[in-house]
C-alpha cells in the first residue's frame, strides 16, 4: 500500500471504503495493470483543469458572437471543440438555447451522463435519486427548489440523456451587460445555468 496519494477526509484510516479502494489499487498496480501516476493525472485533470469554467467560456462566446451561436446550434461538437473542449463524455454534443418561450433542463435518469469536457464531473445531486427521479415528472417543482421560477406561459423542456449525446444548456444573456468582455460575461455563467436548473448571476452582484 501507500502510493503517497493525498486523502482529504479526517478518518481515512478508519473508512472501509478507503481501505477497499486502496486494496484494489494495490492489487491492480501489483499485477501491472494500473500506473498510479496515471491515476494522479486523471484526478488532477478533473479536479483542476476540466470543469464548468470551460462551459462558461462556450456560453460567453455565444453571447458575443452570433456566428458561434449558430455554429453551436448546427454542430455543437465542432463549435465547442474549436475552443479546445473535446473528448470523453463530450463526443456528441448538442447545445440547447434558453428562450422566452422554452426553459430547458438536463438529466440522466438511468445513470449520470453529463458533458465532462465543458462541465467537468457531475455534482452529487445530479447523480442522485432525488433529482433523477423527480425532474422528469415535476420539473417546475424541482426548478422552484433550485430557486428558479418559470412563468406558466413558458414551456419547460427536460432532456433525458439516455444515449451518448450530451446536452449543454445555453442560458440567456443577462440584461445590463452591454459592452462586457467575454471574460467578464463568463463570470456570470454558473454550472447550474448550463444544466438548466439555475440562471446566470445578476450582473449587479458581480460589479
Amino acid at each position, binding site marked *: 500500500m501507500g502510493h503517497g496519494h493525498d486523502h482529504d477526509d479526517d478518518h481515512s484510516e478508519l473508512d472501509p471504503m478507503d481501505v477497499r479502494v486502496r486494496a484494489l489499487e494495490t492489487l491492480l498496480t501489483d499485477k501491472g495493470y494500473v500506473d498510479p501516476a*496515471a*491515476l494522479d493525472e486523471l484526478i488532477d485533470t478533473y479536479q483542476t483543469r476540466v470543469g464548468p469554467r470551460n462551459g462558461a467560456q462556450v456560453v460567453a462566446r455565444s453571447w458575443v458572437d452570433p456566428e458561434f451561436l449558430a455554429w453551436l446550434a448546427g454542430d455543437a461538437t465542432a463549435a465547442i471543440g474549436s475552443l479546445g473542449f473535446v473528448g470523453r463524455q463530450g463526443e456528441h454534443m448538442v447545445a440547447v438555447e434558453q428562450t422566452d418561450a422554452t426553459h430547458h433542463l438536463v438529466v440522466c435518469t438511468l445513470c449520470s451522463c453529463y458533458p465532462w469536457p465543458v462541465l467537468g464531473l457531475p455534482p452529487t445531486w445530479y447523480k*442522485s435519486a432525488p433529482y433523477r427521479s423527480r425532474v*422528469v415528472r415535476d420539473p417546475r417543482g424541482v426548478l422552484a427548489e433550485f430557486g428558479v421560477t418559470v412563468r406558466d406561459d413558458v414551456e*419547460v423542456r427536460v432532456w433525458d440523456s439516455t444515449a451518448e449525446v450530451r446536452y449543454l444548456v445555453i442560458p440567456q444573456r443577462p440584461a445590463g451587460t452591454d459592452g462586457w468582455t467575454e471574460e467578464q460575461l463568463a463570470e456570470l455563467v454558473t454550472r447550474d445555468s448550463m444544466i438548466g436548473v439555475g440562471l446566470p448571476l445578476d450582473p449587479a452582484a458581480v460589479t
Partner: protein
Amino acid sequence: MGTTYDSHADLGGSTGHGPIEHEPEGVVFHHGWEARALALTLAAGAPGGWNIDMSRSARETLPDYAELSYYEIWTSALERLVVEHGLVTPAELAAGTASEPGDPARRVLTADQVADALARGGPADRPPDGPARFTVGDRVLTRAGSVDHHPRLPGYAAGRAGTIERVHGAHVFPDANAHGLGEQPHWLYTVVFEATDLWPDAVPGQRVSIDAWEPYLSPAEPVS
C-alpha cells in the same frame, strides 16, 4: 444474457427518494477514495477491455444499488468487472494480494497517455448500414414491456407515443454491446413526449425527451 434483467437505476418518475441536496460549484469529491475510485475505473478500462455499456450494466444490476453512494456503486462495479474480465481472480480480490503476475499483453494506460486518451474519448457514432426509418416530425411508439438485457429506454417512456425531433446518425447499440454481442449500430433519435402523455396528472406545458435507438421505436398514427 439471462432470462431476467433487474436494473435498479431506472429512477425516472419514481417517488420517495427525499429532497435534492444541492452543493456549490467546485465540490468534486467528498473523500480521497472517491477520486481514486474514479481514476481506477477509468484506467482499468484499458487492460480490462470492457466497454461503457458493460460498465453501466455492472453498476445498475448491483443488488444493493439503492443503498450505495455513487462512488460506492463505481467501486462495487469495478470489483465485478476486474474479475469478470480476467484481470484478477476472485481469490486475489478477496485477499487483496496478487498470487500471479498480470498478463503483459494487456494494454496499460500510462500517465503520459492520459491527456490523449481523454481527448480521444469514445465516439459512439458508426456508419449506418441502411437509411433511417424515421424522419423529423414522425410519430412513433416506444417499445413496451420488460426486456432480458441492459436497456436504455427508461420505464417511464416505455409504450408511449412521441415525436421524432432529431436524427443523430447510427450509434452503438447498448442492448447488444453491454453483453459482448458487438456494437450492432442503429439509428439514434431524440424522441419528445408531452408530459401529459407520460403521466396523466402532469401539468400541461412540459415536454420530456429521450434519445432512443430505432429498435425501440415503431410507427404511430399522426396526431389528428
